[in-house]
């Protein structure tokens, strides 16, 4: 089954406009430093920049050589250096050192720093402290949003998550506000804003302030509803293994800025190929949201169709052949190429994922989500650690265990932690401290007897009843939130029922029918109720901070059911996964609306957990 679009699906706004705006501003900024110049670019800005302005465009505006910022001494003979960087202290410090060393060498150059998406006072302080404030000029490139696809917009700020949630550094909040403001100024005002989470609230506030300062525009909105959600509202979803094609590709090959590099094992040649993954790729577009188990069947069907299309050639006369070559052949060739790539990718993934380990991993995950056979899961995780299967995977399972169980028993916590340290070294003490800080991996406090009791009961009675007991207890307990939430929102479908992954019945299909992502479920519920009424208990368990505000343009109220009313912008603060996007696409299809995802960055379990490592390579 290929997921086809509903015919009444609303048109999505044209986001290429955002690219054009960004490009024009960048060119303007480059022209501010006339003459030939060398351009230094932050490594993680390379790919986004490429989407906006390629090398040819840069060269047209007198960029001589391009370098990646490596925080090392440079070799450049140019008299003008331009730095295109994120506002990070280390980078600015490096530039200051560069300027100072030029100064001591008696070399005169012109320096310009372009901060994107904005400059921070802290960076300027560094310039000042290093005594080079007068030697460099600074500018801002307000490149807030990169459209990755028709329905995915990204701020490309992976550090947002760590800075904001772990370090409590709220400087990116204004960036979020500005991004929304930009969307609003280009695509019209929003009529309704929902949100949950502390950061979401702050972003909303910052945006509102910007809105009040700017001029009011009353133009036809292109999407009317906005939902803001903090990543820390739902950690379970990004910690689960992804099994939908796009998510799986991301987990295994790591999609970077909408493109992926397939290695020799996929391309079945000796070189790697970079492929753009978006709706332009027809093959990919049809399988991206599919459960992996369906993908092969689909691909082989596709291959057959392709063959038939090729076979049409037989029995053609010259004229028909000419038309065929002119009109179809190129398309077929292209499709052929893509098809073989995706088949290659699927095979490679298949090899990795059908292994015993992976199956067991999935089983453990599902048990954790359901809350069954916890003991076995712990043993399994222990073995995982002992065998040093994977540093990140082990951590992922530990976190999943802790969140779903509302913390680990002291004994388990200590022993698992000790084992982990033995496997991966003492510096992970810091990782654990970080995880604890955000509540991803915690020790149950003495006194939380309920869960202790549960596990005892669990040993006596068989597991299924224990699961139910847990539910009963958790509504009493103060913190056992995941179980209670899961129950309240029926996130985990009843086990035992067959789930036909070919005909998904709900969003749970993205996790093989085992779990409906909490984040997406919340969005569904709130949109359905047009607010938080009836979800008070849920929001309380999620630490509150929810809001629903009617926007400035009341005129749009009157036009219900226009296309714009059926487009919802969902902003994930701290990143979202491809699985979540797939789930939202599914939801949109069910409800006859479309979702646009605006995220600070695309994340997955590995990226999420890597953010907790301290200075680890």
């Amino acid at each position, binding site marked *: 089954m290929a997921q086809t679009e509903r015919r009444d699906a609303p048109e999505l706004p044209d986001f290429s406009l955002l690219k054009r705006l960004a490009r024009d501003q960048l060119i303007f900024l480059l022209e501010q430093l006339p003459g030939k110049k060398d351009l230094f670019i932050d490594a993680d800005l390379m790919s986004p920049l490429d989407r906006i302005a390629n090398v040819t465009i840069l060269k047209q505006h007198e960029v001589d050589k391009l370098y990646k910022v490596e925080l090392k001494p440079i070799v450049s003979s140019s008299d003008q250096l331009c730095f295109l960087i994120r506002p990070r202290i280390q980078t600015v410090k490096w530039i200051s050192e560069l300027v100072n060393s030029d100064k001591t060498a008696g070399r005169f150059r012109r320096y310009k720093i372009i901060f994107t998406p904005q400059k921070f*006072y*802290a960076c300027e302080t560094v310039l000042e402290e290093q005594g080079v404030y007068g030697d460099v000029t600074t500018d801002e490139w307000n490149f807030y949003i990169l459209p990755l696809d028709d329905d995915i917009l990204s701020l490309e700020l992976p550090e947002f998550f760590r800075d904001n949630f772990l*370090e409590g550094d709220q400087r990116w909040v204004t960036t979020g506000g500005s991004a929304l403001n930009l969307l609003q100024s280009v695509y019209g005002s929003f009529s309704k804003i929902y949100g949950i989470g502390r950061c979401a609230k702050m972003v909303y506030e910052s945006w509102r302030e910007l809105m009040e300062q700017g001029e009011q525009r009353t133009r036809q909105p292109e999407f009317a509803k906005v939902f803001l959600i903090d990543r820390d509202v739902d950690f379970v979803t990004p910690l689960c293994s992804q099994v939908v094609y796009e998510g799986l590709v991301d987990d295994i090959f790591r999609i970077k800025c909408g493109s992926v590099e397939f290695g020799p094992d996929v391309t079945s040649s000796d070189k790697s190929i970079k492929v753009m993954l978006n709706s332009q790729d027809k093959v990919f577009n049809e399988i991206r949201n599919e459960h992996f188990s369906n993908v092969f069947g689909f691909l082989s069907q596709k291959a057959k169709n392709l063959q038939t299309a090729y076979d049409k050639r037989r029995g053609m006369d010259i004229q028909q052949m000419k038309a065929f070559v002119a009109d179809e052949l190129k398309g077929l060739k292209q499709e052929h190429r893509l098809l073989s790539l995706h088949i290659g990718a699927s095979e490679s993934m298949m090899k990795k994922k059908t292994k015993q380990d992976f199956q067991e991993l999935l089983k453990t995950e599902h048990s954790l989500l359901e809350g069954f056979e916890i003991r076995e899961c712990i043993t399994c995780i222990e073995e995982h650690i002992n*065998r040093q299967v994977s540093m990140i995977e082990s951590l992922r399972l530990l976190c999943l265990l802790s969140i779903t169980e509302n913390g680990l028993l002291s004994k388990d916590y200590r022993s698992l932690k000790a*084992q982990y340290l033995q496997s991966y070294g*003492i510096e992970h*003490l810091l990782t654990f401290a970080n995880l604890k800080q955000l509540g991803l991996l915690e020790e149950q406090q003495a006194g939380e007897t309920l869960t202790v009791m549960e596990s005892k009961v669990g040993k006596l009675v068989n597991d299924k009843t224990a699961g139910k007991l847990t539910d009963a207890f958790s509504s009493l307990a103060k913190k056992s939130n995941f179980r209670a939430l899961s129950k309240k929102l029926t996130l985990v479908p009843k086990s035992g029922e067959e789930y036909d992954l070919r005909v998904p019945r709900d969003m749970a299909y993205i996790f093989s029918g085992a779990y409906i992502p909490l984040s997406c479920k919340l969005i569904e519920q709130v949109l359905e109720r047009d607010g938080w009424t009836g979800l008070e208990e849920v929001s309380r368990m999620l630490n509150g901070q929810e809001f629903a505000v009617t926007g400035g343009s009341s005129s749009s109220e009157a036009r219900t059911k226009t296309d714009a009313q059926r487009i919802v912008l969902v902003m994930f603060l701290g990143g979202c996964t491809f699985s979540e996007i797939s789930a939202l696409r599914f939801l949109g299809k069910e409800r006859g609306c479309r979702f646009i995802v605006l995220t600070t960055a695309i994340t997955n379990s590995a990226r999420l957990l890597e953010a907790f490592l301290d200075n680890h390579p």
Partner: protein
Amino acid sequence: MAFVTANWNPLGEAFYRKIELYEMGWNLKDGLRECLVAAAPYGGPIALLKGRIRRSPSARPQLEIYSSSGLPLASFPWKSGVVKQLGWTVTDDLLCVQEDGTVLVYDLFGGFKRHFSMGNEVSQSQVLDTKIFHSPYGTGVAILTGALRFTLATNIDDIKLRRLPEVPGLQGASSCWAVLTQDRQCKVLVANESQLFILDNTACTPVTPPGLSPEASSIVHICVSFSYKYLALITDSGHVWMGTSNLKEKLSEVDTKIKTPPKQMAWCRRPKSQQPSAVVMWDGLLLVVGESKETIKYHLDDESILVPELDGVRIISGTHHELLQEVPGACEEIFKIASMAPGALLLEAHKEYEKESQKADEYLREIKEQSLLSEAVRQCVEAAGHEHEPETQKTLLRAASFGKCFLSNFPPEQFVSMCRDLRVLNAVRDYTVGIPLTHTQFKQMTLQVLIDRLVYRKLYPLAIEVCRYLKTPEYLGVSRVLKHWACFKVQQKEESDEVIAKAVSVKLADAAGISYSEIATKAYESGRTELAIKLLEFEPRSGEQVPLLLKMKKSPLALSKAIESGDTDLVYTVVMYLKNELNRGDFFMMLRNQPVALSLYRQFCKHQEQDTLKDLFNQDDDHEELGNFYVKASYKEKRLEARIALLQSAVDEYYKAKNEFSAKATEDEMRLLRFQRKLEEEKGEPLVGFPLHETMTMLLSVGLHKHAEQLYKDFRVPDKRFWWLKLKALAEKEDWEELEKFAKSKKSPIGYLPFVEVCIKRHNKFEAKKYVSKVTPEQKVKAHLAVGDVEGAAEAAIERRSESEISTVLSRCSSTTDHLLMERLNRAKATAAKK
């Protein structure tokens, strides 16, 4: 109406008129005699310095400021040095240039604002003569020093002193000079006897006015027009020469036949003038000279001064204030005797209409026949703008309105805006306000500036009325006026903070775009900190409050406001400020109460000042974080001793934090490090820094089994881990002998299936088979299949009677070779299923 032309005087082609603006409200005993007078253009205020020539040593000169109508605005005795010149800036501030080159700045009400110096050179050689001038860059001051050199500042708000080149042969101050703006540069034009020089930044260039009559032996007076485009000279032979200021063209030359040097000379032009003309003033005589040989003579009763304006010259005497100007075209057309211009006819028509005479129709018909009615209306409207008397204005506008009735699609804007403008102009021309602006001047200066002028004079209600009447956007109009009012209000010392704060908030409540922080800054500057804080409370944007709060040293408040604003840059600004301002302890204490600021500062320290970070944790007694800090520091440290020392500190901190787990783990790490070093020294294997697991693997792979065992025991490594580890390490080495020994050493805690798998992975079926028999029954099938022994697997599966296992085996059978086996399996499957 018939008297409109009574004060007109013809000169050549044009007419000139002298209108009385005010009878002066001041009461000057000696008129303007012996006074230093300065009147600002655009109907601005007048400053007088009386009694400059001291009659007794105790007598001080008196400085007085009046409106154009002579109403007193300020008066105070002059206590500073000798004043050489007075002048007004474009923002209605009074400049007093002293002999020593110091310039004192006062506001309209005589409040001292600031002073600045024109440089050492000026103060040493003293000021001989001064001119204050206006240019697109602001108000400038030019000084001729005692050393006969010129010093110039183009804009007093951004002083850049320029000393101009020397003028050859200049002697004494008898010469005359003027400042003019040309080619975006301010230059000085100076006359020395009959020679004329232009001084700019770099050079002194001699110039000659084209066609200057040769009779003259010296130039006695120079004046430049309001627009700097024209220049007029008068020579000792009494000739007035007029030309362009670039000295390329001569416009006219007139012989006045008066050989005494004039007291003052000024251009009398207006935009679109018909002829160049200047006004020259001697004692008791005023002369208008133009293109013709004739001149207009006015008699002056009293000591007067001339104030050049954009479209005429104002004449201020001790008793009167008059405007002398060329009669504007539209007025001339309409009021000239026996004029047949369409405007004149329309005015006539309207007059007849008022008299209910049918002649009205005749006049109208006459205009309409030439289809000039719209022209007629336009003329009337324009003329109304140039008339000073409201009565005349009304008559003209009524006529225009009358004419409009007979036009179908005449655009109303001109008429409407003229009515509005005149209403405003009449209001500000009022005696009590005293700003005698002409319509031309008003258009040139713009409404914005007029409102500013009203605000400078504290005429707030009038300013607000004007804004409302002319429908100026609120933030440009009413709000701005209110802000000025509030800034003034907060300086009133006699009222209490509460009263003022209340008054301000009530008045400003619903005005858009008010910046309370600006008002609060004013309050603070006038020494009312408490009031400033109160006012800041009204500021809706908390970000705006911060800079002032910092200035007022209200740092805790500033910090919390910054945090409230959600702008981290602002928080950062405050934090950095506090860091420099407070001592460390207080600084940390303050951060402690503000988590947002604290985490921001921590972020900064992480990159910039590691040690400060440590101090921060220390201050908070945050031993946990300190422990983490040391651990982190340790793995950045290359030298082992230092590393262990850091870890020891971490251990201490963890114990203090009662985190025994971390303390123990860290101690283990130290032990491991020492062990690794010892072994590294002994065996030469690079071990230091690897995790325990890795270390053991490495030891095993180089055959140091005993040492590995030791670690296993010392660090209480779980059996399972050790078995997995050793198993992998041995297989990796393909040390099958040792593996077998290991398998037999005791019962495997991880079972024997891993043994099988490990061997298969290394493609050693033979070794693998050795372990198949040891595998537990549950895993037997898997084990057999792993080594490729289908029959064995079948055997085991049948024995276990497990349907799923049988199926697994079946799927591995190939129908060609294992035919028999398959049959057996199928049979067994059937029985298993039955059961």
